[in-house]
């Protein structure tokens, strides 16, 4: 076992475990893993203070490939395990990796509570709109009509939208990235880690085997510029090859519209400036879906609030302020009698 001294500058390689990575060749998970290795090195975190907790799924194998502490748990329950860990060890950097099925099907309840409690963990939801590990059944995020072994005639139920769900749970940090956009992902990881409280990051991930090209409509090179809106706090929400398209708020309908500057009277002044703290706009942004709208990427919402484990620790500390309790005294408090 190699022990690094805490002052040594670590590289991406130092964050890769010695385990052979077993995802299918070409799986989007590889790119996310690589981005994470680099990002952690860039952030200068200590591997011994970093923990990856996951549920079950292809995506949830992630911790095995990290040279940090890691816990591959049970299907859907990673938020609960991460909550217990964070309650017991608030000082640790806790990351949670989950899939669309793990997080929103079997684990929906736990994810909801982790988000609304605002426990200080970084949640990475790898959304491939399919159950990868169990060989390709449709998932809660699959679009209507998804053909799969369990839905041979196409799925009929309406999908869940991860970022809409997260905001609905009162998440205070909601972001979205794409598996292969390493630089942007690295920034999201860094922002998520810096955010105190639950940080929710949806990562669009291509499952090359069971749902290939599900996101081609906005990830293909040819369309990417026109179909991706990378939002940045304080900057105009502009996109497109010419960066002449943008989002405008229709004050009649309270809906967002795509406008092209110079067309139909639209001017640069019409384009919204992204304000991470504006929840009203955030709610509109997470509702936008291609092909009518561009896929919104980046930090969509960030407005910190006190985190759960910090509040719990504060109560514990207040109770302990008068010194540690004496069990012998506690058991003898109240009505007792002597027998001699």
């Amino acid at each position: 076992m190699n022990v690094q001294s805490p002052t040594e500058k670590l590289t991406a390689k130092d964050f890769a475990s010695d385990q052979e990575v077993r995802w299918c060749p070409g799986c989007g998970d590889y790119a996310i893993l690589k981005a994470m290795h680099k990002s952690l090195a860039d952030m200068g975190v200590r591997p011994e203070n970093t923990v990856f907790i996951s549920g079950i799924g292809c995506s949830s194998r992630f911790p095995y490939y990290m040279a940090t502490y890691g816990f591959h748990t049970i299907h859907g329950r990673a938020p609960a395990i991460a909550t217990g860990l964070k309650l017991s060890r608030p000082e640790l950097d806790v990351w949670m990796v989950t899939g669309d099925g793990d997080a929103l099907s079997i684990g929906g309840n736990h994810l909801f509570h982790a988000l609304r409690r605002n426990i200080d963990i970084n949640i990475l939801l790898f959304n491939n709109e399919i159950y990868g590990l169990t060989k390709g059944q449709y998932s809660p995020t699959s679009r209507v009509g998804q053909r799969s072994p369990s839905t041979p005639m196409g799925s009929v139920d309406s999908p869940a939208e991860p970022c809409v769900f997260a905001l609905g749970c009162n998440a205070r940090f909601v972001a979205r990235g794409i598996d292969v956009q390493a630089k942007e992902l690295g920034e999201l990881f860094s922002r998520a880690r810096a955010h105190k409280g639950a940080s929710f990051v949806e990562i669009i991930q291509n499952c090359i085997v069971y749902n290939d090209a599900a996101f081609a409509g906005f990830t293909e090179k040819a369309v990417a510029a026109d179909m991706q809106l990378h939002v940045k706090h304080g900057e105009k929400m502009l996109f497109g090859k010419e960066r002449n398209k943008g989002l405008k708020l229709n004050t009649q309908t309270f809906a967002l519209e795509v406008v092209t500057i110079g067309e139909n009277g639209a001017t640069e002044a019409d384009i919204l400036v992204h304000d991470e703290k504006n929840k009203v706009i955030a709610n509109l942004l997470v509702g936008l879906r291609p092909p009518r709208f561009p896929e919104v990427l980046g930090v969509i919402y960030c407005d910190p609030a006190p985190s759960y484990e910090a509040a719990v620790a504060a109560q514990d500390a207040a109770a302990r302020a008068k010194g540690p309790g004496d069990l012998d005294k506690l058991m003898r408090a109240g009505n007792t009698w002597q027998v001699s």
Partner: protein
Amino acid sequence: MNLQADDIRSGAPDGAPIPKSDLDAIVVRFAGDSGDGVQLLGSQFSQETALVGNSLATFPDFPAEIRAPTGTTYGVSAFQINFGSRPIKTAGDQPDVLVALNPAALMVNYKGLRKGGLVILDAGAFKDKDIKRAGFAVDPRTDGTLKEFRVMEIDISAQALEVAKPFGVSQKEALRTKNLWVLGLVSWMYDRELKSTMEYIARKFGAEDPIGKANLAALNAGHAYGETHELSGDVAPVSMPSVKVEPGTYRLVSGAESLAWGLAAGAQLAGLEMVLASYPITPSSPILHILARMKQYGVTTFQAEDEIAACCAAIGASYGGKLGVTASSGPGIALKTEAIGLAIGTELPLVVVNTQRGGPSTGLPTKTEQSDLFIAVFGRNADAPMPVIASRSPCDCFEVAIEAVRLATKYMTPVMLLSDGYIANAAEPWRIPSMADYAPFKVEFRKDPEGFHPFVRDEKTLARAWAIPGTPGLMHRIGGIERDYNSGNISYDAANHQKMTDTRAAKINNIADDIPEQSVEIGEAKGKLAVVGWGSTFGPINRAVANMRAKGHDVSHIHIRHIWPLPRNLGALLKSYEKVLVAEMNNGQMLQLLRGQYLVDAKGLLKVSGQPLKISEVEDAIRAQLASA
């Protein structure tokens, strides 16, 4: 009427007079509407009784409904206490005295009263509509229903209203002092001091609160009623000498309290802070409530979103290097099983407290049962062994909780601790232990990277190393997938799975070398008949076996605390008796376990009525066993 105290005693044959000098125990049952404050009445009377040094056992018997419509039989709440000047082991088979605060309370309880026993009625609650509502066709006071009992009718409602008048409280509040009026009366009957109740009232309401004043006045008025009414004259109050017990400081303790304190004590002895994660469920919730107020004792509590999350959060806490504990009952335990399997596979310490209740499904939430033995020992997918230990009484919960923590941390394993609804709610006098009497079992976290992998084991215990996040140089991954014996890395290898399965089993089986050999509670270690029990049936079995031995029968009592693994010598011990009778409150789970483990032809005394086992039931079963060829 005359209160013939001489006739009031437990264990007296129905209707038979017993000289006053023999009076060494009495069973009193208080019953009323769920809004009548019967539980408070019972627990305050228990407190007073404990303070005069009597031995006692209690049985709070709650309805499932929080506020059932008044006057209904399903809204009846009862509290039974057995107290005396000899060691008391159960709450008593048959009450000698029944206090019924309304017709429904009478309806539900009069049949259990000893013939010749005393019924004290609130005459003010026997209006026609109340009588009908309770299901009596005619007034039971007039049609001979109660002819086998002595009946004392007092208009307690009117008394309470009268006493409360000067304090200007509402009629509703005035009527709610009925319980304290009764407490005053019964305290007079048995010569109990009112001091602790007075202090309780002062604490609860403060000196100036008119409601507090009304309650205090009711208490004194009930007592004065006994002194001054026709109850005096030829009837002196019964006074019972204190029981001879070991010297020490005593208190009353409920199973939930002593269990919560025992967990905190165990964590302290292990040198760990504790995280209790739980989801409310009857009858487990008091453990969460008590520990939530124990933050200064190194306890953090977490009310999770469900029992799965509770168990998982406890596992997360253990992973982080604290003692993870989760507590639940019935359906909640069922939900935890997958996560318990994870703790078994990843070999993390965890204490799972199971306060058993009647089932299946929602079953009988407020009633007691011992029917989770199978789920505790076997209730997981795959070969997933874990230690199981059971508490026998409210006091014993403290010891068992410490033992559960010791096993969990020493062997890196989840442990299931079985309590039950009866134990959790019942109270008994407890000789308060000192923390200094317990040997610490400090946990050592792994720090040394030399030769480390997460599944490197202690040669003797087979426990894996506990290396916690934050430790430099020991970064590692664990998970639910099978792990390689030699590295802890994922392994699908066939021989390795066999070896790991065998190792997990051996680790738990080894615990049999670390627990006491099975002893015999009373009687010889061989002979005609052994009555075997576990958990809260200890009291009735112990008393029944003692009674039968006093009559010259060859019968012994064996009580099993360590349910899994079983004590090394248990098989041989059982085989040294001609017959084995397993008495338990389920459909034969320990019975099956013992038959399966040892091929003994044990028979069962099995009861699943939601009520504790009675001494007489065990005696009858012993008689039947000894009589049959």
